């Protein structure tokens, strides 16, 4: 299945605004992140487990245990600093 991935702040600076990814049905956010890390290079650097990132599924903050379905949009970004 296909999901849209979007990046923000320091992750966006490293990887651009987003891309699409093909993953197996039943994939959760953590497994998607791992699959992106496995692309190596800048992906491994920007999304690696040494970095604390937050995630969102379909415009709502989510934990990495969240299971994805076809067509979902997933955002990866650093902790929020608004207000």
């Amino acid at each position, binding site marked *: 299945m296909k999901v849209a991935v979007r990046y*923000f702040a320091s992750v966006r600076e490293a990887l651009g605004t987003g891309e699409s990814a093909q993953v197996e049905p039943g994939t959760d956010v953590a497994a998607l992140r791992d699959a992106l890390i496995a692309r190596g290079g800048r992906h491994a650097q920007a999304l690696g487990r040494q970095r604390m990132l937050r995630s969102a599924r379909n415009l*709502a903050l989510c934990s990495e245990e969240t299971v994805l379905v076809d067509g979902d949009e997933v955002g990866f970004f650093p*902790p*929020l600093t608004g207000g």
Partner: protein
Amino acid sequence: MPASPRVVIRHEDFDLATEVAALRDGDGGIGAIATFVGIVRDRHDGAALEALELEHYPGMTEASIEAMIDEAVRRFDLRGVRVVHRIGRLEPMHQIVLVVVAAAHRGEAFQACEFLMDYMKTQAPFWKKETGAAGSRWVDARVTDDAALARWGIAATNAADAPAR
């Protein structure tokens, strides 16, 4: 509810009196208005600040703040809420965020205004990048902001280390 939108994300500045007047809009049941205006400071961690760049997640920002306002309306007896958050380049002393809360009584207005700001600090998708003499850097999240939201009984782990899978 007022005809004007509850949440506005924009580059342009806002005028406090105009926003308050729009929220009041002839509602004679309003007995209290609490407002919060966030302003860009000229220093951060001791260093002079030249500018802030504010990035957000379009769509998610509006949806998440709308959800926060829904939660505030559940918790407090309110007659109106308006939030304006600016994005893009901001300089020291510029206004950055506005929260206006209208209620029948002051207690609810004060509390809801603080609740919304505490919520927004850790749950709305904004990121600040600072530029100063030493260059540009992304602002780090603060655990004290998570603690502020915890006071309302909402667990936040924005700045804390994420739990292991």
